[in-house]
């Protein structure tokens, strides 16, 4: 079943998953996963409920596999606190310590990692995610996007060798998304291993050259993103944009080469495109040029459900 571009064993393996399964009673969450990951950015793709979070939790030692073996940097990950000095995790859950400021939260991580200069390290990590202005505010007052960024800062503060990110761009606005994607790309280019789980295809389109596709708890596809992407290019996707000037926005969108159709409904514009990435890159520029305020961008076909139906039959 499914598409695979062939098991791409990286030259240097940092994450090894061998025959891993996880079940809860009769319910199988992940079934017989085997793959390896090396330095660079790798995307773990799959629709909601596919088993991505369970996989990430087993990779970071939060869950014990029911069967199989997980090794990170050549060592077992379960109950191995020393290894955690080289691992960073951005968890899926939003819960933080509401009574701490952003700075105190990241400093706490730095202190627990026994960094020699925790304040300076926290400041650098907060600067990376553009949160210095809000660093002294309590976390209870942070927006969803800010929470996401402070979670990324605590995962970066000790400059980990391997970084796991579970849906890291949730809640971030388009500008922040681009900035964070650049951060992940740089880390990957610098030889770190960055494994990003996402159910939004366009989110990882730019970052992930290697992808692992999980569907129904199984590895459905593995390999180079562009090969998978090529299979999908014939299938136009729809994106809904809520703005304060839909007509000006539509005029800007019609100039894009990938645009195949446009619908305006009140303040909403639904664009059909064969080049979603181009669209997402062009939107902030168009908004700035034509002074359009963007309220919300929703990829109507980006949840991967349709992609998976296509990929795995």
């Amino acid at each position, binding site marked *: 079943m499914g598409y695979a571009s062939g098991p791409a064993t990286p030259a240097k393996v940092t994450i090894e998953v061998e025959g891993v399964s996880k079940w809860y009673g009769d319910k199988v969450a992940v079934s017989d996963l085997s793959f390896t990951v090396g330095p660079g950015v790798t995307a773990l793709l799959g629709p909601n409920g596919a088993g991505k979070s369970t996989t990430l*939790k087993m990779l*970071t*030692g*939060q*869950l*014990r596999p029911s069967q199989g073996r997980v090794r990170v940097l050549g060592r077992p990950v379960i*109950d191995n*606190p*020393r*290894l*955690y*000095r080289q*691992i960073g*995790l951005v*968890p899926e*859950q939003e*819960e*933080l*310590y509401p*009574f*701490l400021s952003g700075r105190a939260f990241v400093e*706490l*991580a730095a*202190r*627990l*990692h*026994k960094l020699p200069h925790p304040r300076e390290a926290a400041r650098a990590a907060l600067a990376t995610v553009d949160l210095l202005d809000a660093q002294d505010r309590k976390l209870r007052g942070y927006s969803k996007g800010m929470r996401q960024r402070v979670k990324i800062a*605590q995962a970066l503060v000790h400059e980990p060798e391997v970084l796991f990110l579970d849906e890291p761009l949730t809640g971030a606005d388009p500008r922040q998304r681009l900035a964070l994607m650049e951060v992940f790309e740089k880390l990957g280019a610098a030889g770190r291993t960055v494994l990003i789980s996402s159910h939004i295809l366009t989110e990882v389109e730019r970052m992930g050259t290697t992808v692992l596709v999980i569907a129904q708890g199984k590895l459905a596809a593995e390999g180079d993103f562009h090969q998978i992407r090529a299979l999908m290019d014939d299938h136009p996707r729809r994106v809904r944009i809520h703005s304060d000037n839909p007509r000006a926005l539509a005029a800007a969108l019609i100039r894009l080469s990938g645009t195949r159709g446009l619908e305006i409904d009140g303040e909403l514009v639904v664009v059909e495109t064969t080049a979603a990435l181009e669209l997402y890159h062009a939107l902030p520029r168009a908004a700035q040029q034509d002074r359009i305020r963007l309220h919300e961008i929703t990829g109507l076909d980006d949840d991967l459900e349709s992609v998976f139906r296509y990929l795995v039959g």
Partner: protein
Amino acid sequence: MIAIFLLGLRALGRGRRLLAVGVLLIIPPLLALLYALTTTQPDGHRFVVQLFNQVTLPILLPLTAMIFGTSALGSEIEDRTLIYLTLRPVSRLSIALAKCLAAAVLTVALIEGSLFLVNLLGALNDVSRTYLAPNGSTKAQGSVLAPTLIAGLLGGLAYSAAFLVLGRFAPKRGLLIGFVYVLGWEGLAAGLSTALATFSVRGYVQGVLDAALGDSPLNALTASPLGGSVSGIVLVGITLGGVAVAALSLRRIELP
């Protein structure tokens, strides 16, 4: 470990939790004040020991420790923030110890504060008394501040560790289970017989108090058959054992 301890203090020592404990622990000083205002034959030290044995030890001390102890790890599990401690290069023992210390420091500080006020009011309402010691000498019946503080300290540590474990295994229902245990077992059953007292923390705290009171006639009020040394060892054992169990269980914990 210090960072986790300070985090624990900040998490536990705020808001409604602290207010609830404060309201509970103001009760003994208020009763001592009432006693001072109404008694015609002041015997403040005796009243302090009675108050400790009948109110602070069976109810308030375990309730205070329960409120802080069950939340120390329980809230981290329930709020899903434990990952920010366990996915660090920190031993599980350090996490458990730091959390237990945070709960115990708050419990002991507040209990001792309440006991100090009660002792102060008791001392102000006491007339000097003497008693005949077993060796035939005459002794003054002195303050009971030190014995009650020692008993409060060891009891606070043991209860905090026990409730830390409860919070680890029952993060959602820890408070409810703890409440039933405190009122049913420590408050009621352990006071019914010596045999039952040996299976309660309360019995051993009474043993420590008894020993700390020495040959004062006031130790007849505690009437604990458990020796002071054994009681002290058991309480320290419960504390260390609780921390060890919590640490071991953190090694096995899964965070779905």
